[in-house]
């Protein structure tokens, strides 16, 4: 199936859903969940293929759609209305309410956009220099320096806060390196124990990598492990070199 490559940026999952609904000319109050869910998932897949970031909100919406879709397949539970009437509960109800609300917001955003576009065609002029009309004295008398400082401080407060960035330094510990290390040790010492090997490890990642290295070396039949009794020390020796 050929994806329609929509390079339009959707502002969120509701925006995308609304687009799909409009494209299919679907009644918003009667959304065919299977179809829409499938198309939504297709779109996410296409986004991934294009290496576009799929934010968590899209994934949450995908899960919601799947949940609604599966609930649609179940026999409808009935629920008692306040007036005693029994009405079938539609699993889509909340989603429809959200979509209708969002649709209104989108309409309003469009209305604002055309207004700002119109307004950008309107020019004005800077205020005239009224100094000649002032009786006497300096042009600005009613402001003190502190008012200006206050203005600047208020501005500083208004500035967007710098996003806090925590740098996570990843220390990459390759299993291959650990395998190399284990073999070096064994060549030097002839034999060792599992505990001894792990003693040098300073981080969880190092522990895991060393453990994986031992497993891998066992699988490759480079080393042999033996244990005298349950929970006893695991002894590690080099396999006899194949002759």
């Amino acid at each position, binding site marked *: 199936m050929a994806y329609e490559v929509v390079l339009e940026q959707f502002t969120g999952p509701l925006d995308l859903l609304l687009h799909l609904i409009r494209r299919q000319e679907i009644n918003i109050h009667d959304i065919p969940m299977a179809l829409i869910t499938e198309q939504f998932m297709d779109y996410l897949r296409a986004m991934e293929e294009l290496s576009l970031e799929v934010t968590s909100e899209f994934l949450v919406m995908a899960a919601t759609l799947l949940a609604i879709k599966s609930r649609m397949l179940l026999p409808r539970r009935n629920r008692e209305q306040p007036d005693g009437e029994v009405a079938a509960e539609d699993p889509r109800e909340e989603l429809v309410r959200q979509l209708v609300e969002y*649709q*209104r917001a989108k*309409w309003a955003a469009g209305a*604002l956009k055309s207004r700002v576009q119109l307004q950008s065609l309107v020019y004005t002029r800077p*205020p*005239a220099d009224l100094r000649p009309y002032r009786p006497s004295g300096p042009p600005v008398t009613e402001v003190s320096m502190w008012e200006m400082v206050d203005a600047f401080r208020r501005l500083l407060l208004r500035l967007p806060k710098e996003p806090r960035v925590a740098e996570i330094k990843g220390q990459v510990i390759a299993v291959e390196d650990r395998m190399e290390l284990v073999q070096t040790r064994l060549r030097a010492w002839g034999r060792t124990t599992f505990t001894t090997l792990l003693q040098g490890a300073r981080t969880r990642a190092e522990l895991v990598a060393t453990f994986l290295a031992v497993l891998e070396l066992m699988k490759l039949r480079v080393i042999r492990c033996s244990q005298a009794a349950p929970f006893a020390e695991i002894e590690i020796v080099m396999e006899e070199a194949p002759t």
Partner: protein
Amino acid sequence: MIVSLLGPLEALLFAAGSEGIATDELARLLDVPVAEVRSLCAQLKQTYEDRGSGIDLVELAGAWQLVTRPEHAPYLRRLATAPSNPGLSQAALEVLAIVAYRQPISRAQVEEVRGVQSDSVLQTLLHRQLVCEVGRMEAPGRPILYGTTPLFLQVFGLRSLEDLPPLPEVDVSEDDLSLFHIAPSVPRD
């Protein structure tokens, strides 16, 4: 008497330029009641219209202001200084629209309508002084409530919030929406 005040009114508005003058301030400057200021402004606006003037009189964010007419923008664009198009993203327009129509509103409420995190967009709008904090909600955590600023009214050419186009009551028809589509000429199917 009334006619003779049209000249002073125009001179005052001309001198005030982009700062504009509020109705009550004009009443003080011209020494007439507020109602008469409104009538004078209406007359001046009509005069401009009647003679196909390049100037128009508008009320923006509570202040009367002389501006050029949109249809003359092509000529004015050739002058060096152009008014800024604030260049708001689709997301920013969405948040702004929700704040404008639903104010006072908390960030969480904005996000509920949009279905998407809106923190950074809101920060941008705050910084650009299109929205501001207007109070706190009486709820756990006392979340900040946001509203629009006078600059918002100015940028969007609104006299007041009542000037916002009314929201479609229930459903928006396909046609209404397509008006605001960016590229309706691109076939969608």
